[in-house]
């Protein structure tokens, strides 16, 4: 019969609690992933004016996601409470998750009150912005928790693919924030929350490229330069976006071939970084993936640029006509700023990864 010494029982408790914290963070991130996928699908259904009830599939996905995230934050808290002297290492993750879930769950009643007074709201409204901010914070908290666990436990290559689950909800929810601040989907009978077209143009042109570059180079650094992870993350983003924003609109179905080509720059960036991990290669990768933001955010990004460059009425079956009519003009205006923002994404990912991994 073996007996546990105080030291080994402490280690056992620490390992167990840390693992519970990891499971909590995974739940939080996975829940937010479901909420973002459901949200994107819901926007498409609204644009297509598909009959909607509370029990629609996108809503089911979103509410399940919130429930899973809530469970995740509770698990993270339970795990963290028993971490003893390791508490500090995971406190940042827990703190951000707690603030996020507070905003996320608080947005529900706020949305109900808002609907009661002002009817249906657009993409940007106080309850929706609270919701998206909550989603973003939860996903950031989950990402920090997962990344730190993997680092502290010297996880093997295969476990590093968990980082995809950690980063994709951050990318998607941050995209939601940028979209709500730049898309003209927020005009209602009571409020005109549509962003001013020129400001929307600037936000979209700078923030999307920065975010793509940041997300991809961040996962590359967090995974300790794991080959393939950048392509998988990029591919997963394309898969989610195409299945929620393109496939549900039958008029755009043929454009899937165009959209799937966007995997090429992700794979090339990945291969170049495998061959050469120098600063130059990282900047090249960041600039490259930043420069393709108009293609990656097909089709809805077009609405922002249409406001200022064409001013056409865009009904669902005309989306891709207007998108392709604008593509060359948009790139003339945005290519250089997008590449520069891609570079900035690389620089910021270096600082952020150090902060996350406590280097």
């Amino acid at each position, binding site marked *: 019969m073996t007996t546990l010494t105080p030291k080994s029982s402490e280690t056992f408790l620490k390992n167990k609690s840390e693992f519970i914290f990891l499971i909590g963070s995974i739940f939080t991130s996975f829940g937010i992933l479901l909420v973002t996928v459901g949200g994107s699908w819901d926007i498409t259904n609204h644009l297509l004016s598909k009959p909607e009830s509370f029990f629609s599939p996108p809503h089911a996905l979103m509410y399940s996601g919130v429930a899973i995230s809530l469970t995740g934050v509770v698990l993270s808290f339970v795990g963290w409470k028993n971490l003893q002297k390791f508490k500090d290492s995971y406190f940042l993750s827990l703190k951000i998750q707690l603030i996020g879930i507070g905003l996320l769950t608080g947005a529900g009643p706020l949305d109900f009150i808002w609907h009661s007074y002002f009817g249906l709201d657009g993409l940007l409204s106080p309850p929706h912005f609270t919701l998206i901010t909550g989603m973003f914070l939860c996903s950031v908290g989950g990402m920090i928790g997962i990344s730190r666990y993997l680092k502290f436990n010297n996880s093997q290559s295969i476990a590093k693919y968990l980082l995809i689950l950690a980063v994709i909800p951050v990318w998607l929810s941050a995209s939601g924030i940028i979209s709500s601040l730049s898309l003209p989907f927020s005009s209602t009978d009571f409020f005109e929350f549509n962003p001013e077209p020129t400001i929307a143009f600037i936000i979209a042109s700078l923030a999307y490229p920065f975010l793509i570059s940041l997300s991809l180079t961040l996962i590359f650094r967090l995974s300790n330069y794991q080959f393939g992870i950048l392509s998988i993350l990029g591919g997963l983003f394309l898969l989610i976006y195409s299945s929620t924003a393109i496939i549900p609109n039958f008029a755009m179905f043929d454009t899937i071939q165009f959209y799937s*080509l966007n995997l*090429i720059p992700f794979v090339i960036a990945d291969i170049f970084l495998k061959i050469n991990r120098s600063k130059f290669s990282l900047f090249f990768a960041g600039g490259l993936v930043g420069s393709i933001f108009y293609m990656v955010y097909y089709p809805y990004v077009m609405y922002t640029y249409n406001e200022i460059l064409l001013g056409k*009425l865009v*009904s669902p079956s005309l989306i891709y006509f207007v998108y*392709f009519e604008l593509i*060359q003009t948009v790139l003339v205006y945005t290519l250089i700023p997008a590449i520069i923002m891609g570079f900035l994404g690389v620089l910021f990912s270096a600082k952020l990864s150090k902060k996350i991994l406590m280097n």
Partner: protein
Amino acid sequence: MNKFLIYLSGFVILSLYFILTIFILPSEFLMTEQLIPKPSFQAVLSDSEIILNDSFRLDITSVNNGDYADIHIVSVAFPELIEIDDVVKIATYDFTLSPSYISVGEEIGSKYSGGVETTISQYPSIEAMSRPLKSDVETHFDIVVTPKKSGIFNIYVKSIGIPHTSDVSHYPYSGILDHQNEHVLVYSVTVNP
């Protein structure tokens, strides 16, 4: 040498990607035919002459004879009225969206632009909308009207399909223009004192 070949292949593939996504595929997609909805309607008046305080009925059956329409609109306007009040009541309605009541002085779309060009409404109207409407699907919009003044009571009726990609994407194709600079058919009833 190996690295050089990989870089070279990468740049060639990237060049192909940019050429395809910026030049070739967009022009291919822009050459595809756009959907052309072809709305039309039949409207039947119950009476051509009534006595003041009596009611008459206008039954409108509209259909999309063309391609899938993102939006199918039937609009009825009342140039003799200042407000709809209880003069007009909807009797039958099977469009997918709730009817929209437009008052005098509201900013409304004009010239079939779907709101890109606007004007100010000079008389009240009701818009019935289905989003979307497939080909050959019929929709119904019947109203009961009880005029409060004697004289000629006119009703303007028109239908518009969106995307408005052709001159057949609205009905009627010609004739009287309304305050939105769009063609209408006029249905008149004489109201005797």
